[in-house]
Structure formats: C-alpha cells, structure tokens
C-alpha cells in the first residue's frame, strides 16, 4: 500500500564538524585522561552525592507508603531509576543493582496492582545499609546474597502478576 507522503532522505550540512574541525578524527585520549582525572578529583564527594539520591528514594517511599497512588509510585520509580544510574557512576555498584531491581518491580508491575510493601521496604533498607557500610566491592558475599535474594523475589512477584500491556510499565514517567 502506497504511503500518503513520500519519504525524504537528506544529509544536513555538518555544522559540528565545520565548527570543531579535527582532521585527525578519533578519540582524543589526552582529553579523556584529563576528564578521568577531573572525575577522580570529584570522587571524594560521590558518597555524599549518593546520600542525597538515597534521601530522595526514602522520601518518595514514605509518601507512597502513606498515600499510595500512581503519582507517588511514579515519583518513587524516578528516584529508584536515578539512584540506579547515579550509584553506578558514583562507584556503588551494589546500590545500583538493588536500585535496578526496585526499578524493575516499580516499572513492570502493572499500574493497578498493589506493590508488595515488604519487598519495596527491603530494597530501600538494602541500599541504605550498603551505602552506610560503604560496600563498593561487587564480590562482597553478604551483599551479593542480598542482591540475589531481592532479584529473585522481584522475578517471582512479576511472574505472578498479569503481564503489563506497556512492557516498560511506567505509570506516568516517560
């Protein structure tokens, strides 16, 4: 069936290349090293930065626990999702893993389905403990066991729920 409007394919002028030049092309490793050094300088603040993200999760969780509702759930999902990305960058990989597990639960459990409060609480407590104990080693056996248990419970919860028509399942977030 013919489409109503023809498809147009065109190459816009490369204004970016014209602006920055760079005849040699490729990754500027000297600049990358400078950036890595600058990140290393900031790394002393990472734990403190992550504490702010953890507080956001704790606050949104508290609001959801009292008021429930899609908006509160979406806010908690945003906080968990942010924490996942931030923790991975700020050198707390296990916090990132637990936050990712919580994001999966919040995002994939159908919107009308009540979240299991104990499982959500367990995730929140887990990230707080991992951060408080400054556990950054992914091989830490206790933390690994905890992460695996949380992952398994989320998987089991999602398997028992009807499939969300929106696979990504985010109540309001984009």
């Amino acid at each position, binding site marked *: 069936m*013919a*489409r*109503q*409007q*023809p*498809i*147009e*394919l*065109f*190459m*816009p002028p*490369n*204004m*970016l*290349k014209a*602006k*920055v*030049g*760079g*005849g*040699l*092309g*490729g*990754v*500027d*490793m*000297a*600049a*990358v090293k*400078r*950036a*890595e*050094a*600058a*990140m290393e300088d*900031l790394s002393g*603040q990472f734990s403190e*930065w992550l504490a*702010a*993200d953890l507080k956001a999760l704790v606050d949104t969780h508290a609001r959801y626990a009292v008021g429930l509702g899609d908006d509160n759930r979406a*806010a908690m999902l*945003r906080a968990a*999702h*942010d924490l*996942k*990305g*931030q923790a*991975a*960058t*700020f050198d707390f990989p296990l916090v*990132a893993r637990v936050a*990712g597990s919580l*994001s999966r639960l919040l995002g994939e459990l159908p919107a009308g389905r009540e979240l299991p409060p104990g499982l959500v609480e367990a995730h929140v407590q887990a990230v707080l403990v991992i951060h408080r104990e400054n556990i950054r080693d992914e091989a830490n056996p206790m933390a690994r066991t905890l992460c695996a248990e949380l992952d398994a419970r989320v998987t089991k919860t999602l398997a028992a729920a009807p499939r969300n028509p929106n*696979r*990504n399942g*985010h109540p309001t*977030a*984009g």
Partner: protein
Amino acid sequence: MSGYRFERLKVLAVDDNAHMRKLVVTILEAFGVHETVEAENGDRAWTSLRENNPDVILLDWMMPGMSGLDLARMIRTNPLAPNPFVPLIMLTGYTSIDHVRQARDAGVNEFIAKPVAAKTVMSRLVSVIEHPRPFVRTSVYFGPCRRRRANDEYRGPERRTETEQVVE
C-alpha cells in the same frame, strides 16, 4: 590528540540530578568545552535551547515533567525548535534494547547507558562529529536515519518505501 576545537562548542546538559549535571559538565570542561548550559528538566531545556541554540545536547531520559524522550521529539518536530538537526546524546540508566529503540525512534543520535565514563562521552561526541547520519522525514518520523549501517550488499527491493526521494 585528535585536533578537535572543543572550545568552540556550546553544550546543553539536561538532567534533573544536579550532581550528574556537575559530573557531565566537569567531563566536558576537561575536554576543553568552554560554554556549557545546564537545565534540570525538559521544560527548562526547551526554554534554554531556544535562548542558547546549543551545538550538542546531552539529555537524561527520566525527569519530572517533560521527559528526555518528549524533549527529543519536540526538538525534532516542533517548528519553534531553533535547530531540529542538533545532535542529541541520551544519557540514561536504561540499558535494554527496547529503550535504545525508543530513544532512536524519538530522534536521538547516540545513547549512553550509565555509568558515565569519560571515554564513552568522548566516543559519542566524536561519533556525532565524524559520522552524522542522514535525516529522514516521513509522515510519522523526523530525525536521524534509524538504520545504523549502510548495506551495500543488499540487492533486494527498497524496504523503506516505494516512493522514497533522496534530496541532495
């Protein structure tokens, strides 16, 4: 050494997390970018990009209010966008292929899954400088061509449409 004059770039960093913005700006400044503009959500970014007309935008996906995905669509399709061709680099905690597809379908050029690494940011910047993709306009999409690779070996019929026009 690549010889890029990054100091000539103006980059807009959009993220609701102030610390993540600081990290991204720190990386860009270490690359030599002098002019960085920050926005904490899609709505502010929309205002900012109309005021500043950045050369590149690094944007988070999930933000309160207008998401990064909505912002990308708006930049590509809203007639008020100052530069619908501006390279968009999505920086997000999402990692699944579904999310990469969604970002691509919104008109995003490049995708960075957190954790953020300086080398990855540089690599995506180099990609939008050195390997810009052609743009496609259809009734339902406007943005960079979503086909990653040209397949010169393909000898079958044109799959995109029978009525495609290539504009020089």
